[in-house]
């Protein structure tokens, strides 16, 4: 009986948190128009979540592309199809690895920082202080961070894919001797703007909303103690990684299903 009760309590709690998160995100988005005359707040946050994440994204993109080049060449050469290496690298990056790996790195680098920052603001009662001054902390603190995350994520994913393709070219063409013309022409024949690139962008926008949404909610909802903030940061990384991987499957199924 106790076990059943514990299970029920867990589900009720989870549902309650989910409901609160939805209401909170609605509040963030519906209050965001206040930012139109104060756009510098958003720019500041794009700097924090985007520009400072750039290095890790570029370095991992380059290496992921290079590994794809090596692994792909190793397998394709068995079928005498190493000319398709460019297509393999570009499709894997644009469709899957670009959005997903960027979202995972983004959750680890920017999401955790957002949660810790907002959680500490709550713990040190800065958010309560703003409310005392009749400034709504949701629109002043949360909304710019949320919007900045949604803006930065697709741009980061695009840069990841682009530099990954370059990494694949470095390994495939310069190191392993795949013909450069075949590399690019097979890629351009096989990669469709709408089906592949646009769907990748849609994915990365969705991941941006999910990861940043989880990060700001966890921060805002954190228990205002040092332990609470550390737990919230932890939850951000775990939940957003799981959400990204799960959603990726659903989105891929939807996108492949419609053709």
């Amino acid at each position: 009986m106790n076990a059943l009760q514990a299970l029920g309590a867990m589900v009720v709690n989870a549902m309650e948190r989910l409901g609160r998160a939805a209401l909170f995100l609605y509040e963030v988005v519906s209050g965001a128009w206040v930012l139109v005359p104060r756009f510098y707040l958003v720019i500041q946050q794009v700097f924090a979540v985007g520009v400072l994440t750039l290095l890790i994204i570029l370095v991992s993109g380059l290496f992921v592309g290079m590994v794809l080049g090596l692994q792909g060449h190793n397998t394709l050469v068995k079928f005498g199809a190493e000319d398709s290496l460019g297509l393999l690298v570009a499709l894997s990056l644009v469709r899957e690895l670009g959005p997903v790996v960027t979202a995972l790195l983004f959750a680890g680098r920017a999401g955790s920082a957002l949660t810790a920052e907002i959680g500490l603001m709550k713990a040190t009662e800065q958010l309560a202080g703003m409310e005392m001054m009749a400034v709504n902390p949701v629109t002043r603190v949360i909304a710019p961070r949320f919007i900045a995350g949604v803006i930065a994520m697709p741009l980061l994913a695009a840069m990841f894919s682009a530099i990954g393709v370059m990494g694949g070219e470095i390994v495939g063409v310069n190191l392993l001797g795949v013909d450069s013309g075949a590399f690019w022409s097979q890629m351009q024949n096989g990669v469709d703007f709408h089906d592949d690139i646009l769907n990748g962008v849609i994915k990365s926008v969705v991941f941006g909303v999910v990861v940043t949404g989880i990060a700001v909610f966890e921060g805002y909802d954190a228990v205002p103690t040092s332990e609470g903030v550390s737990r919230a940061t932890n939850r951000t990384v775990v939940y957003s990684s799981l959400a990204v991987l799960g959603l990726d499957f659903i989105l891929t199924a939807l996108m492949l299903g419609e053709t």
Partner: protein
Amino acid sequence: MISRKSVEIWVGVFVAAGLFALGVLAFRVGNLTTADVVDGYQVEARFENIGSLKVKSPVTVAGVRIGRVAQISFDSDTYQARVVMNLDGRYKNLPTDTGASILTSGLLGEQYIELEPGGAEEYLKNGSRIKVTQSAMVLEKLVGRVMTTLIDRPAENNKKK
């Protein structure tokens, strides 16, 4: 704390680089530059068997791509496949007796339609139909034909004796 100006510059660089990367993906990696068929016209052909031809498969003349397959359907009256091709409007002077055959690029490559211009005076127009067609080679049928000829031949030889 960094000054407002440098934050704005960095964000500007970031957004520009992101958009540039998207542009690279669209034009260098994707097929947006080979932006298809300018004010094209549509031509129809019927095949006994189209193999694995798909919508958007290339249509070529002398190896140069001049269009794409726009639509594939099955005609239940003649039991044939009806293929509509979208051809580039710049190449309007294909004779009406042009032949269409389905070929394969490479050993395991994708299938495409090759048009072979004939000698007629009149040209194909929007909606006209290509009458001379050659179906796709289906590997199993080909193997089957080879097998039957190989088996039949000894039998014929026996008869002659």
